[in-house]
């Protein structure tokens, strides 16, 4: 089952895809752009491993980044981030907590499992979200 992983030319890409997904959970937006570049360059690949470890992270990262922006938009609309001094306020702190609990927590474990499967040269389907992708 693990015999051909060294021969798989897409393994590096697969690992990069999952790593960028995890990185995007912690520092949203910039890793998403890099992940987008990888995805669009390789979206028509015939390599199943690459497809599996780029498409799911890309779409899930879009989803997590959208939630990140939404949570912060709500924080901004309710009075947060209105000045530089107000960057660390109850609004930004609540946004951080909500993002950690609702986004980082449920998505980190699939990302971690995806990363280890990519390192082993195996495909992996994310729970729930993976069914629709």
């Amino acid at each position, binding site marked *: *089952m*693990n*015999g051909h*992983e*060294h021969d798989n030319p897409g393994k590096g890409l697969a690992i990069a895809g999952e790593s960028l997904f995890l990185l995007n959970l912690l520092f949203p937006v910039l890793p998403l752009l890099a992940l987008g570049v990888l995805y669009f360059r390789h979206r028509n690949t015939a390599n199943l491993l690459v497809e599996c470890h780029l498409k799911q992270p890309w779409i899930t990262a879009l989803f997590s980044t959208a939630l990140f922006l939404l949570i912060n938009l709500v924080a901004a609309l309710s009075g947060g981030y209105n000045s530089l001094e107000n960057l*660390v306020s*109850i609004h930004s*702190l609540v946004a*951080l*907590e909500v993002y*950690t*609990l609702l986004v*980082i*927590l449920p998505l*980190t*474990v699939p990302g*971690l*499992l995806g*990363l*280890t*499967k990519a*390192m*082993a040269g*195996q495909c992996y389907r994310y729970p729930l979200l993976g069914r629709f992708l």
Partner: protein
Amino acid sequence: MKYQSQKVAKLYFIAAIGLFVGQILFGLIIGAQYIWGDFLFPEIPFNVARMVHTNLLIVWLLFGFMGAAYYLVPEEAETDLVMPWLATLMFWIFLAAGAATILGYLLVPYSSLAELTQNDLLPTMGREFLEQPTITKLGIVVVALAFLANIGLTILKGRKTVINLVLLMGLAGLAVFFLFSFFNPVNIVWDKYYWWWVVHLWVEGVWELILGSILAFILIKTTGVDREVIEKWLYVIIAMTLITGIVGTGHHYYWIGTPEFWQWWGSIFSAMEPIPFFMMTVFAFNMVNKRRRNHPNKAAVLWALGTAVMAFLGAGVWGFLHTLAPVNYYTHGTQITAAHGHMAFYGAYVMINLAIISYAMPLLRGREAANSNKSQVLEMWGFWLMTISIIFITLFLTAAGILQVYLQRFSDSPMPFMVVQEKIELFYVLRELTGLVFLAGLIVYIASSFVGSNEPEATAEGEVVAS
């Protein structure tokens, strides 16, 4: 079991599980007291039950670590323990001292216990988690020294591997940092400052080395992956543990009277503390994915993988949730801390102990590699019941903590502590019910040791091609 002297580990493992049961029972008692304040009062007041709950946890984990060391060091060093008789003697001394201390807590008022044990000669009592009478603490030092001598001399005599050296480093650190429990300055800031050298540098420092080495040992044995690969991972993990964990102590120094720079140092370094746990998860799954063989002890592999995931979630994610100084300003000492504590201790240290027990016990009981299928299925039921329960306990406590922070510390008209406790009672009821499920899981886990003893051993399914 390759070496006869490994057998001493069995005593430690049995005692550990016995004390674990006690810890859970007292956990349920204090859980009930959160709902019915006078439950079992005055026979077992809340402060006493809490002390017994936390002290039993520490003692049984220590029993587990010692058992793990007595099991894996001879195998790693490829030689018998130099003094197996000393390990047995220390077991009985430690068990007697532990039992006497717990009985002391339960039967004698704490102040009388302090008088009775001559605490005034060298005052060390009265601090959270370090409530043990001074004489018990001295006993722990004697046991730790004898234990370290036994383990150290065995390693010195035999093969030195990364695993047994990292384990020895962790155990030596455990003993050294415990010595700060004897330092009890009058100044409360100094007192707290050094108190964390025991508490924090144990659980977020040297204990992680013990965890890493035990996990590495189990993974070598169950996956057949090259030792060199596993050792490289272990080096990086322990380096990250120490880099982040030592300065990360600063997250306890935000509000105790220490200089303000700790808010920066503590925030930055403790925000990085999830990294070694993250690496541990990648490490464990990576090794299992690259395994050269399927091990028949599936329960042990499940515990090992569970340890990596739950430690990352409990210690890593839930720690990060309230570790930044501006967040901690609001959350300090609330149920959010309790949520983190429960999942982190279970995920990191309870599970690694159960993992090594699961791996070693069948061998110590004369099996070739694993228990019967029937026994393993039951054990895995225990795993899932306990793990799912602790996840829900953590979620309920987190919800209680968020509400507590809002009502008590943030709203325009903050409420007093006890009023808020009534407002969040629903979560305490849910936590208690989930605690009962946890107890059921523990009973199932213990029952798995007695079921299927006469049935044949489980066998590995299918061969795996080496990567």
